[in-house]
């Protein structure tokens, strides 16, 4: 029915002026030649990578002048991710190919992952491995340098919706359509499987120390798991909306969640879950203008469209 990429593209629906509140502190402003439909940060917030309405990749580096531009002649880019050191960007094309881009020299590797759309891409912390969630098969693990598929996961039904690597490079977790979360080591060998609830998970994110991971999906709650055992540690309350994306704060104490309304599948709210207090608060922001989220060294960052040719970064207080 949906790909996560498609849902992210829904975020372009409006370009209203951003709302201001005491919850958000204004940061850098970025100029863009085209409207940006999705963006995230890399390199402790010193780099922003986005997908334009034209299906191309735009990358800004601090102090955020003009972006570098990458156009693929093969197909539009539907999902994008960058390595922790900012050297590599993985662009998932709508034809199922992943292009690994080097900031200096352009295309460094071409991975023929599938022939369908891609759901999510995640680099290992050292940038040597890529885990790719696809629309038509379980998550695949690739060796970036060799351009080789190392392993394909398993599901009982369907494919995978999201994937995340732990910071210690030792494992990744795939959120699968059969409602199961499957953990694999860096060779693709199964470690354990677990479940958040009996609905589909759409997002997974690790804490910065790699010891825990958070999952959310159609059930609308966020669940924290122990990454060593797969045991459930804590579950948030819910606003009743499915959650389609998560971003972990650098402190590991807060998680930002993008909620979509379950009928129109349009952005409904961005909420912050404080893990320790279990408080769930909605950010006072025009969610239809938010095109993505990321982190800097110590904070969550929201990336907001500020008209068709500009982005604003907002620090979540």
């Amino acid at each position, binding site marked *: *029915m949906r790909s996560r990429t498609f849902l992210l593209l829904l975020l372009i629906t409006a370009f209203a002026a951003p709302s201001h509140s005491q919850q958000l502190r204004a940061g850098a402003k970025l100029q863009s030649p085209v409207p940006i439909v999705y963006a995230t940060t890399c390199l402790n917030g010193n780099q922003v990578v986005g997908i334009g309405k034209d299906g191309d990749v735009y990358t800004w580096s601090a102090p955020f002048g003009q972006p570098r531009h990458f156009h693929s002649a093969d197909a539009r880019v539907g999902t994008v991710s960058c390595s922790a050191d900012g050297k590599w960007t993985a662009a998932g094309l709508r034809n199922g190919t992943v292009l690994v881009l080097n900031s200096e020299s352009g295309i460094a590797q071409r991975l023929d992952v599938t022939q369908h759309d891609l759901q999510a891409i995640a680099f290992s912390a050292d940038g040597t491995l890529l885990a790719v969630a696809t629309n038509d098969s379980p998550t695949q693990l690739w060796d970036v340098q060799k351009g080789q598929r190392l392993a394909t996961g398993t599901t009982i039904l*369907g494919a995978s919706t999201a994937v995340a690597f732990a910071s210690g490079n030792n494992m990744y977790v795939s959120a699968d359509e*059969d409602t199961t979360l499957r953990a694999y080591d860096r060779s693709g060998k199964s470690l354990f499987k677990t479940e958040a609830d009996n609905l589909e998970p759409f997002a997974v994110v690790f804490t910065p120390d790699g010891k825990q991971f958070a999952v959310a999906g159609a059930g609308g709650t966020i669940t924290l798991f122990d990454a060593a055992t797969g045991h459930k540690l804590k579950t948030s309350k819910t606003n009743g909306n*499915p959650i389609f994306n998560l971003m972990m704060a650098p402190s590991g104490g807060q998680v930002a969640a993008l909620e979509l309304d*379950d*009928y*129109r*599948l349009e952005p409904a709210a961005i909420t912050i879950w404080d893990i320790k207090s279990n408080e769930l608060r909605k950010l006072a922001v025009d969610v239809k203008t938010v095109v993505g989220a990321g982190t800097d060294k110590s904070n969550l960052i929201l990336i907001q469209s500020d008209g068709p040719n500009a982005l604003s970064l907002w620090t979540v207080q």
Partner: protein
Amino acid sequence: MLSRRDLLSKCIALGVVTVSSNLSTSALASAWQQAEAKAPTPAAELGPFYKRDAPSTASLRAASDPGIPLTVAGLVFDTRGEKLEGAKVEVWQTDHTGHYDLKGFRYRAALIADNSGKYSFNSVMPGHYPGRVCQHIHFAVTAPGHQPLVTQLYFATDPVFEGDPYKNYTRDPLCRSRELVRPVVLKGDPDAIMANVNFELVLERL
């Protein structure tokens, strides 16, 4: 293992051979398999609102539920044409207004094909909703020794197709096969219409 007599009688029943046939057992078996071979049901996306552990009921519709009453039935086969008794058929859909039940299990069920491979359930015609073009019902079918099948059923009466589903099925970008658009038999008075759909499911062997 089928005997030559079994094969011969099956082939005769199918019109593959005549009564006076002097074909060998292997030739009969081959003829029978060719006659009964079925193409696998085309796959479709699973998500996003699949829910595990649905109840095993064939009555998804309560008596007071609004919407056009709908009965869906069919046989579950493998690609050799053998009926798959005991296949698990999970179905889920929206209500007649296009809403999925995420909190509970309304319009969700897990059915088991009977000893003739048949499944059936009563429901309502699903509604349209903004994130999706066509009315549809999701299916996930599993049977030991077979590839799981994830697919969707569409309705030839859907107004989106404007009376020509075989030409217009691509109006829903997620509807990739015209075979998944099934004829709808409407019965009853104009103010009490009931819809019936036959949807055969064919799984590939592992």
